[in-house]
């Protein structure tokens, strides 16, 4: 309670010192006519960072100022100022906001409406909080303005990331850093060419580093793309505090060693954990790989994902014994439990930090705790070779990786420190899905017969997860199997193999009825490949392509459909199609065999990411597939 009282005093003091707003006349500012593609215009986006000593420790006081003009009535508009802080790593000193109406009058946000609440995230519990101050709503033509003052501690661990562009145009982007004499910062750039930083000295000997950008265009959404936000990364490199000269992590190796030291205190064992390891050893035998697989499966089956992060809990796992006893934990906890089990089973491993991505890996920036990694996996040494494995991806077997982990920069932890490494670009030697359909015309319309569905590698893991998420019944498996057929499907007598965690392949079999397969006019039936699963996809037209094209992890799909023709004969057989490119290949053929027709198609993706200049080629490839899939087989009397 005492602390809360002190904080309130600080708030009041800073509230007084925050100063007056700059005079703003919305009518004289640029408007919708000058920015026809924008809903809002960011007039000013400014971060001012002042490093100093507080209580003998280096801190940063950060002032963030934002000024936005609402250009259109249909624009999404800001209605609150919010700032997230993590107790122990920072605090929010003050928030304020206002709206300047088109006529120049203004309304200030009511400080009595300030709320300090937990953040909402995937984490079950952490000590991150967010302060939210509702503001009046700006109408079209009005200017919304905010100022947040906060303090950040732990400069060695945490760097700064300054986004330099957004989804709306920015008129003026400023970053200003003020350093006491003798202190130094280091910068790096992500998704941006380096920009010249102005350096200066103030009369008191403090130095300044300033970035100023004008008229930064918005980064638009592009289909099959991922917006790459240009970012200035910055950290304190050298400074002096009450303990003397201080220095940030020299490089990735130093960060690796620090992480190892932080994590190793959670690597202790318990009698229960020892017993689990003995059981796994007895089950798996002496083969190290079999032991590693058994331990991996144990963690996947017994530990449910559940994140609790308090203090350094975002980086330090909970003790492995607690995770085993309670049966829950987050990615670090799972990786640590597996690491300890493997250690007891005589298999060497290292906890490994990674950025789990959405298709485009994030390159490593500066060696700080934040801004590089968001996930933890494990590197395991078997037969003299290191292999990566991710026990959080429960349905991906040992030794393979989910798509989000592929091709990513990683940093393993060891006492002496490790260099940066990279995960492989593919999940396994065989990432493939195949379907075999043996069908004949159904008396009630459409086709009926038997389906065998098989998958290996990533496709197997994805299907295993999908099937496991639903109810464990043949009926539910059948429903999921049928989702593949756009013209309707019912399945019966479905059996499944390979659903258990740790398996590398999966197979589903069952009887299917596809009532909507084929178009019928009188005694003539028209059949297209698309009736047996739509493999086509869309690469929409774009004016200009700037972003990389994300194709997903490399993989292959194959399908063989045999249609028995009880009556009628083939009147038109579509010609075969073959498309080849460095990023993928596609082939489709229809062949007539006795009283049957066989459709064979195969699609293979070789690359996960394409440069933007190849988008047009990809569009042609996609259209070629769609054309082939739509060509019709005609069966008539």
């Amino acid at each position, binding site marked *: 309670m005492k602390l809360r009282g002190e904080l309130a005093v600080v708030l009041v003091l800073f509230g007084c010192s925050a100063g007056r707003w700059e005079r703003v006349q919305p009518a004289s500012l640029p408007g919708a006519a000058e920015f026809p593609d924008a809903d809002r215009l960011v007039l000013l986006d400014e971060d001012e960072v002042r490093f100093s000593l507080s209580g003998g420790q280096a801190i940063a006081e950060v002032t963030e100022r934002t000024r936005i003009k609402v250009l259109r*009535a*249909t624009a999404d508009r800001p209605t609150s100022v919010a700032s997230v802080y993590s107790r122990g790593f920072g605090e929010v000193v003050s928030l304020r906001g206002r709206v300047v109406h088109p006529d120049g009058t203004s309304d200030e946000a009511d400080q009595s409406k300030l709320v300090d609440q937990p953040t909402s995230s995937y984490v079950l519990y952490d000590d991150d909080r967010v302060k939210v101050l509702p503001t*009046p709503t700006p109408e079209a033509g009005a200017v919304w303005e905010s100022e947040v003052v906060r303090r950040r501690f732990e400069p060695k661990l945490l760097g700064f990331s300054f986004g330099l562009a957004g989804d709306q145009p920015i008129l003026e982007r400023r970053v200003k850093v003020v350093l006491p004499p003798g202190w130094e910062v280091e910068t790096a750039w992500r998704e941006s060419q380096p920009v010249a930083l102005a350096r200066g000295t103030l009369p008191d000997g403090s130095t300044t580093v300033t970035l100023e950008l004008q008229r930064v265009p918005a980064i638009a959404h592009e289909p099959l793309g991922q917006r790459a936000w240009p970012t200035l990364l910055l950290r304190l490199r050298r400074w002096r505090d009450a303990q003397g000269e201080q220095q940030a992590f020299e490089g990735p190796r130093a960060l690796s060693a620090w992480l190892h030291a932080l994590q190793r205190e959670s690597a202790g064992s318990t009698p229960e954990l020892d017993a689990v390891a003995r059981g796994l050893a007895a089950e798996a035998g002496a083969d190290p790989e079999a032991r590693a697989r058994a331990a991996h499966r144990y963690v996947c089956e017994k530990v*449910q*994902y559940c994140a609790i992060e308090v203090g350094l809990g975002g980086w330090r796992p909970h003790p492995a014994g607690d995770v085993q006893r*309670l049966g829950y934990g987050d990615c670090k906890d799972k990786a640590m439990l597996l690491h300890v089990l493997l250690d007891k089973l005589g298999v060497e491993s290292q906890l490994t930090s990674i950025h789990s991505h959405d298709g485009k890996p994030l390159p490593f920036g500066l060696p700080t705790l934040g801004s590089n990694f968001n996930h933890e996996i494990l590197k395991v040494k078997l037969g003299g070779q290191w292999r990566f494995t991710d026990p959080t991806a429960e349905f991906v077997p040992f030794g393979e990786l989910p798509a989000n982990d592929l091709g990513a920069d990683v940093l393993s932890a060891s006492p002496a420190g490790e260099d940066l490494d990279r995960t492989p670009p593919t999940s396994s030697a065989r990432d493939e899905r195949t379907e075999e359909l043996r069908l004949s015309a159904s008396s009630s319309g459409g086709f009926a017969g038997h389906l065998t569905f098989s998958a290996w590698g990533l496709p197997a893991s994805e299907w295993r997860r999908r099937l496991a998420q639903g109810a464990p*019944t043949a009926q539910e498996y059948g429903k999921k199997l049928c989702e593949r057929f756009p013209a309707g499907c019912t399945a019966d007598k479905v059996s499944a193999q390979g659903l258990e965690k740790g398996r590398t392949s999966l197979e589903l079999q069952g009887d299917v009825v596809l009532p909507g397969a084929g178009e019928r*006019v009188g005694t003539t039936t028209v059949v297209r490949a698309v009736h047996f699963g739509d493999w086509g996809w869309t690469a*929409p037209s774009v004016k200009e392509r700037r972003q990389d094209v994300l194709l997903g992890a490399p993989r292959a799909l194959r399908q063989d459909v045999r249609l028995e023709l009880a009556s009628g004969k083939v009147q038109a057989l579509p010609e075969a199609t073959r498309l080849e490119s460095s990023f993928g290949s596609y082939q489709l053929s229809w062949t007539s065999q006795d009283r049957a027709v066989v459709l064979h198609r195969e699609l293979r993706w070789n690359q996960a990411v394409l440069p933007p200049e190849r988008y047009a080629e990809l569009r042609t490839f996609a259209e070629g597939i769609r054309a082939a899939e739509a060509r019709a087989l005609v069966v008539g009397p």
Partner: protein
Amino acid sequence: MKRFLTVAVLAGGLGCAPALKATLADEAFFKSLPAEPLRGSATTEVLLEQERYLYYFEQDAVFTDHAIHQVIRVRSEGARWLANLKRNYPRRAELVDFACRVRAPDGSVSTLEKAQVFWTVDEAKEGGQAHLAAAIPRVEVGSVVDLDVVVRVPWLENPVHRSLKSNAPLQRYELDVLLSKRLTYVMRSYHSLQPFQENVVDGRSHVAWSADRVPNEADESFSDVEPPWWLLRLHSSKWGSKNTPILSSWAAAYEHLTAAVDGSDRWSKGFTAKLDVTGCTDARCKVQRAWEAVHQQTDNSGVGRFWSTRPLKDVLAAGEASSHEQVLLFRTLLASVGVPSDTVFVTRPFDEPFDPEFPSDEHDDVLAFVRPTQGLEQGLFVDAACEECQPGILRDVVDGSHGVRAWAVPRALAEPEAFAELVTPRGSGRSKDEEQLTYALAVTASGDVQVTERRRFLGSFATDHRRDQRGKKDSELREAAERELVARQPNARLGDWERPTCTKASAECTQTLTYQVPSGATLAGARLLVPLSVLSTSFQNTMVPEARTAGIRLKGDSVRKHVVEVTPPAGWHVAELPAAFEGGSSAISATVATSRTGGVARVSRRIALTQGQYPVAQYPRTRAAVRTFADLRTGAVVLEKD
């Protein structure tokens, strides 16, 4: 070693105050578990749910303790999220007790320690919430989670109700309510023949109710199945010798809302109502102007609540408004030109048969009632939040439903006096929801097809379309159109595209787009087969199974009309057309009609839904209409060389 979880907060309780305690299932219960789930499609099964309320007085304060005890079997990986327990409560709520035990598939039992329960409260002068988070141990496939949470609020929760509608089947539900003898109450249940058991326990009124083997929701479209419900309303409370009625009348139920709406100026601060009624000679005209002004200045963003209604100044700035805000704006504008009106709360509180003896302030929607005046002798119900409802027009779900007209009369030196009366909102007509799609197909001799698609949406269909495109750029909408097009017509290539033209005043949206379908028609000897695959509909997977258990409930009327016109290439003529159809039931009827005019084939289909509840016996005829309508997509027009 560091404790796994470091923060634990449980309410200290109130000393000698009565309180519910968390309880867990005993061994006998676990021995009697059913082996098979009620319905196989669920990822969990609730083996037991016990819900308890305790209403009591402590000195000069009142409290409600509420406990929910659940025993849940985890049937698949999809239910392991149960390990992450997160619930929000009012900020002044206290966590009184918490217990949890998990039986793993191997029979071992893990108990959740109270130190693993996190209770945090927002710091706020206004609003805010309390947050419960608990990590439940050993949640594996096959585990049984036994969990009881008791929370207290320092007020009388009133009314309270519960539907047993759930994604998970429920083997047994038990309700226990204990009330101070100073309280009187009324209870109701629906879709249940189970009576309430009432007696006195330890000097308190006690009510018990139960339900057995409640299945989870069936996957049947337009189902009319409703699970059991119960409701409880406190009727009066005794303070000293005085018996104070609570929600004893509809006026009492709406007193606080009426006072907030009609007795407060917090909505209108900084707002000056301006309504141009130039040329208006009667109230009807002013009503029309006010309704138009509301929709010119705001878009509807959902129903909302009066308690979260913003000042009208902010509402206009945002350009988006909840239904409550739109009604408030409408009434304020009307008042500014001297036309009095009241608020009408559309009260179908539990989606149940309306019960006039059960006053409650729960409502689904809100209207305005313009009081009788010159030019409007009968008064007028106006749905100011419905942009397809011109004054006097009501939506199907509102017209003929149940409402509470509420108003307040100012009093000198006292709070305004609230009044309410039950009303039946009636309109002079109903809004019409209609979809009209026309596809003009020009076919070449080589089988390429050029399509011109014209779309027209009316009523709420138009409102939905307009809302979907609000704030979106042309490039985003075109990309979405391209994706949607190839989803229904795989080989199509979008050509001309225009942004939909939507008119609020007439609740209409129109759009024209063109696309090519290379090899869209198939050459088979001397015949050219033109598939009707352009005909896409949301009914594609509706009513596929031949049999079902539930009756049919349709919440509103709607009509969909689709026309395909096929122009053959020169030297070809129309040879065959799909079969015509006319049929269906009083719930859903459909027609398929074909014709040849001037060498052009015309295939049209129409489906009409009529609001109402229909017995399952109507399903076969209803299904026939729906399937014929939907399956026309797999048909074709056949052309032959002259």
